[in-house]
């Protein structure tokens, strides 16, 4: 227990404005996110992430949003287990043929008004997997998309920018 306390004290607060090259931009994005979420979502934007067929690369970067460095909760962004509580669906993919129905059901289970953000080059247009018998291409082929975030995978700061764009739009 003492070791844990000591480690916590030694670590201190590591949450930071952002990486040097994006610091100014992200500080601004952070404050805009906070302001917007406070106004439109009563301080709490709840996200359900859906993997509709990705390679797991996008998931790693979405996980990173929750690490102590990016710490997206400070802006009021939370991830939920159920689409019933979600304001926004964060969908990665290309949409796999075998996930199409599950994606539609998740979308239908999310209460309106709802936002959909397609993540990654595959989410935009199918990326390297293209369109074929098992890959239906971008997320917009199956459900309506509000904002698409390019990148393979998009960096955490690109993800935050995309989320901001969705709630400002």
């Amino acid at each position: 227990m003492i070791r844990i306390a000591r480690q916590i004290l030694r670590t201190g607060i590591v949450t930071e404005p952002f990486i040097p090259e994006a610091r100014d931009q992200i500080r601004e994005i952070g404050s805009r996110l906070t302001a917007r979420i406070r106004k439109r979502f009563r301080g709490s934007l709840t996200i359900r992430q859906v993997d509709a067929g990705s390679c797991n690369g996008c998931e790693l970067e979405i996980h990173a949003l929750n690490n102590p460095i990016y710490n997206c909760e400070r802006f009021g962004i939370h991830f939920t287990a159920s689409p019933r509580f979600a304001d926004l669906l964060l969908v990665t993919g290309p949409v796999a043929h075998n996930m199409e129905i599950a994606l539609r059901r998740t979308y239908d289970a999310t209460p309106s008004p709802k936002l959909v953000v397609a993540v990654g080059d595959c989410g935009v247009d199918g990326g390297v997997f293209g369109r074929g018998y098992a890959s239906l291409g971008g997320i917009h082929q199956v459900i309506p998309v509000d904002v698409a975030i390019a990148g393979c995978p998009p960096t955490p700061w690109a993800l935050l920018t995309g989320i901001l764009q969705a709630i400002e739009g």
Partner: protein
Amino acid sequence: MSLLHDAIATALDAEIRLDPSQHPASVLLCQVPREKFVEAARLLKKAYALLAAEWATDETAFGRGYGIYACFRWGPEYLIVKTEAPAEDPTFPSLTRKFVPAYRFERQIHSLMGVTPVGHPDLRPWIKFEDWPPDAWPLRKSFDPSRPLPRVPGEYAWARAEGEGVYEIPVGPVHAGIIEPGHFRFQAVGESIINLEERLGYVHKGIEKRFEGLSWQEGCRLAARISGDTTVAHSLAYAMALESMTACQPPPRSQWLRALFLERERIANHLGDIGAIANDAAFAFMLYQMMRLKEMLLRTNHQLFGHRLLMDRVQPGGVTADIDAAGRAEMLAELDILAREFERLVVIYDESPSLEDRVKDTGVLLPETARELCVVGIVARASGMNLDCRIFNPFPPYDQYESLELNVPVMVTGDVHARVWVRINEIRESIRIIRWLLDNLPAGEITAPVGRPGPDGAGFAAVEGWRGEIICWLQSGPAGEVSRVMVRDPSSVNWLGLEQAIPGNIVPDFPLCNKSFNQSYSGHDV
């Protein structure tokens, strides 16, 4: 000749034929008649071989029928046994009764290539869902992959358990967290799980078929996206298999850099896993500490090599990113911080009795079961199997035993605790390897030209990714184009291990067990 070849050659001497079109030369391809396919497997099993993969090819373009390949391994040797099924009679004898992992491989061959394993106990479709047309066989050359599949009615037949108090819990494909899709069906009595059935295939994107429409170079970009967290290892396996077919020798500096990327990928993923396992045992402190260290690594990757996950840094013929003196100094400084912080956290992990209580004797995969299932990688090493391609099938620089002195951690308890400790020790070892790589990095070029494979050849590579052994097998067509790419992610065999490790555990421990295996869905569902 090799030990495995001798094992089948003595009994089947006149009936096997060595195929010289297989590269590299150290991997033998023996062709046996269809009726001797099981006999060959039986002889190899007697010689202690493990089944590494089984797959089928459509060779009608060469005027042949379907090729069925089974890849066996023992120690440093790989041996591929091939048999042919004529196009008018697409069947072959099943190996499932000899080798358990053939169970999934053959269901997949049956579903996607339409070649029937005769004697297989369970021919329910695998990867292919019940709403696909029954005659849709995407891996056949006659299949048109550009058209979307129509949906037909159908129902999957789940394994059932009946009895008083038995109930069923369906989970997925959309799980609670930020995780890939799959479906798990538990039968439980009270808290105890009596059976787990996995159903995968939700992220099947037709990757193996997709390769067939791409050039050899473009294929590497696709290979890098088979499983996003194993991008270095998968693109490396693809690149090495292609290089073996074209007699391309990547420059030494690029091989050192490849190893460097591979070890950095290993550390980053292991850090994430240790944190996530601890978090599933309600020890969030460890998750955030580990995520902090992982983020540090990813940032250094971004800064030095231009990509956080190192995607597309490995290419056929070499690598696309180099490191200079300043980068080297930076990485060494980063490793010092990482090593120091990590060791502190290991002490905390080790001294937390409440955590120990959750992870010990949970999700046990016994060594004898592990061997029977031919599992690989961290799962195998936590269950007493000393398997590691970096030792048994090394590419440079791993072949420099004397100065590298690679140490592979092996545990025997096969529980969550063992899988965590294998990861901890691998991180320590990888940090040491990276320092060694940076100290011994040869100067010179980082790419070499890659030729075009000749017609009707095959290339093979096995690479130790962070999850375990990755196998990539390539076949060229009549004009030297891509004819077939077979990818065997470690998850393809290790998923069977999870299914066996779960019964007897309580339902709330499933996430903990699952996380300790941490298998890829995308890599499995290719």
